[in-house]
């Protein structure tokens, strides 16, 4: 019982930490620091998944944790760093919505997902309940990052933190087969490649990765 309670607390802390790091992402206005926070996000995710693997006694989840650690915490942030450097946009400061309202909206979203998840899953395993509520918060915050940013790189980061939320939800539930996780990981990788290529194409054509350049090209005003 004591052990169970400790396991619960640790996984709770890790998931809560993930939500906290999502909040940190909301107010980063430099691209490098955003990427660093994202790497931290993926690291905590990897820890959380590993802890779940240990608690649930499911060794295949270690694979997922390693995937998260290698790809999301190391490969992708490093690659994005290089992209930002190549594009020469590391000094850009950008945010479409002010930090204050964004943080307030983020708090509202977390409250919403708590209220909703705790009520909907009233008779489920308490560990899975909390985990799902946190995962939904991470997903919504990732979406919020995508919506409030104007730069394509930060939108990519928002998208990937959203994926982290999905992985958190998938590992929280017992008995999720490895196939699903691998496919999730690969989908992220593919999305990253595609978006990376698109970034270069956009850059080539418009000399900027600010997506408003696309809007200007279409003759629209924001």
């Amino acid at each position, binding site marked *: 019982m004591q052990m169970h309670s400790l396991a619960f607390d640790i996984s709770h802390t890790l998931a809560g930490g993930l939500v906290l790091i999502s909040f940190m992402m909301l107010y980063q206005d430099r691209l490098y620091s955003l990427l660093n926070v994202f790497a931290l996000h993926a690291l905590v995710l990897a820890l959380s998944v590993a802890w779940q693997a240990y608690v649930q006694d499911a060794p295949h989840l270690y694979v997922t944790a390693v995937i998260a650690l290698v790809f999301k915490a190391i490969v992708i942030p490093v690659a994005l760093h290089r992209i930002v450097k190549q594009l020469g946009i590391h000094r850009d400061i950008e945010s*479409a919505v002010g930090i204050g309202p964004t943080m307030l909206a983020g708090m509202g979203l977390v409250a919403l*997902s708590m*209220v*909703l998840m705790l009520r909907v899953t009233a008779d489920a395993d308490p560990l899975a309940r909390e985990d799902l509520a946190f995962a939904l918060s991470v997903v919504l915050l990732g979406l919020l990052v995508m919506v409030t940013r104007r730069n394509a790189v930060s939108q990519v980061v928002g998208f990937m933190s959203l994926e982290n939320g999905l992985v958190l939800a998938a590992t929280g539930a017992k008995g999720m087969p490895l196939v699903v996780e691998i496919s999730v990981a690969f989908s992220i990788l593919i999305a990253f490649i595609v978006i990376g290529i698109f970034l270069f194409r956009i850059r080539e054509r418009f000399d900027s990765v600010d*997506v408003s350049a*696309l*809007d200007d090209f279409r003759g*629209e005003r924001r």
Partner: protein
Amino acid sequence: MSPVALQMTCVAALLGSAVLAIVLSRLGSATAVVYGATLVVSLIALIGSIRWLLGGTGGATDLTLPIGLPWLGAHFRLDALASFFLVVVNLGGASASLYGLGYGRHEHAPHRVLPFFPAFLAGMNLVVLADDAFSYLLCWEFMSLASWALVMAHHREPGNAKAGYIYLVMASFGTLALLLAFGLLAGPAGDYGFTAIRAAHHTPYATTLVLILMLLGAGSKAGLVPLHVWLPLAHPAAPSHVSALMSGVMTKVAIYGFIRVIFDLLGQPTWPASVVVLFLGGITAVMGILYAMMEKDLKRLLAYSTIENIGVIFASLGLAMAFQANGLKLAAALAFTAALFHVLNHSFFKSLLFFGAGAVLTSTGERNMEKLGGLIHRMPFTSFVVLVGCVAISALPPFNGFVSEWLMFQAVLQSPELPQWALKIMVPAVGALLALAAALAAACFVKAYGVAFLGRPRGKSAETAQEVDRFSLAAMFILAALCLLAGILPGFVIDALSPVTIEILGGRMPIQSNEPWLSIAPIAESRSSYNGLLVMVFITLSASLVVFFIHRFASRAIRSGPAWGCGFSDATPAAQYSGDSFAQPIRRVFGTMVFHARDHVDMPAPGDTRPARLRIELHDLIWEGIYQPIADAIGYSSERLNRLQFLTIRRYLSLVFATLVTLLLVLAIWS
């Protein structure tokens, strides 16, 4: 081979001919091959279904094919109702194929018609045979799409693209209504077989909804006012033998759907439902024929007349529902037989008249009757059979139209036996509407025939008209003979229909073949009876006698001299009575209210040499009052929503995000 397997084999053969038509369509002989094949197959299916109907004791036979939904399969069933409608479908199919053998030669784009013609026939056969909701809807859609393709065969002609578009929209709307109706019928258990639906109990709420949805779904296909708007556009746009099939047969398939669901699947009808059907039928009959009366285009006139006949059939079905709801089996069987008889009759004479219109179109290139005239001298055979069709559709004895309308009015006269006051008042009122429609129909066809076939040619094309080929004439003569036969021997038809009434209503009309001298007595001889043969003999004899006496006792010498021209010795053909002038009295009486018709006379001042002009202003109030506002609303809102096409990526993301959050909020508040 079981009867249903025979019918399904015929359907397969029709689908095979459709494939064959695709392969052959560029060859010169394709027309003869395809129409020959459909003729043979339709005849086999026709004989099979007639034998089933006359054999009478066969009982329904089922066939399940392992296609369609995996847990359901495709069920097909041949019972009395289905076999009667198969007779209608395949008789129409056979005659249209025979006609097509000749008419199809003039088709300038046969590859647009040939593949779809057998497919259309197959679709109609399948709808009648289907025994589960899924197959029914699938075949219904197949039939609609095949006929749509045929409507669009001449898509470059002005107006046809619009006709096809409106047809497509209305057909999708109708299928949506049918889909919802079958969904309600299947209920929460979701068993889509007709056997299960028949056995299930339906709540009054669901029954009412199903009735409304069927009136929308089957009614839009059949042409009930105000859902008829596509029909006078689409039916004339197709090649004439296809117009004949669409008007004469496809509308009947829609009526089959209505009967199948309302009488068969839902079980006992209720009397308030019958009031709705009666009312819609009466209004449809009068509106349809008033529209027809205002029409100049021969094929559109026929299409509008189809709407009138659909109204007559629906009114008879409403009568049958009213009697059945009150347990008056005999009267219900009478009204139901009248409806079915009229279905058969209308398929005969409407096909015949569309064939006639097609013959006129082939030889003159004209559909506008104001440019025709005098065709009786140039196309004597066509003129004769079209005259037969006009007399039959005007419900004059001794032809078939009279018998079915007479039976219907006999049923109307049974209305005092109904206990509800609403029906006691409603039925005679609808009877009056139907009588009005019948009289207007006669006027309408006097106009159509008189203007197009009598008088002097109004144009070059009418002057140089030639008689059409033998295949077309053969098809028309066969249908004309059937009109006469069904008119003078109605007792046999009524007896042949009795298995259907027994199956659907559980009652039947008295056996007619026992009546002396081939007369028919729907209730009892003491009340009313009719003998078509006797009427025909009387008409023939008296007319012959009159002709004989005139020729015998009047001056036998034939003198020819100049006709008296009222002082205008060389009147142009344009000075003849035109269709518009013939319709003027009716336009004045009814059109002022129904169409907001106005005559504008532009009279030049004295001394001015320009001609005076008479302009007629007509409004289609149903189009302007119902469809135009809907079209405007859709146009307006799509104009507004168009801005959504040009948002920024971030705005799209925000929209997705906002939608997600809203849905979650809804869930959080209501769960």
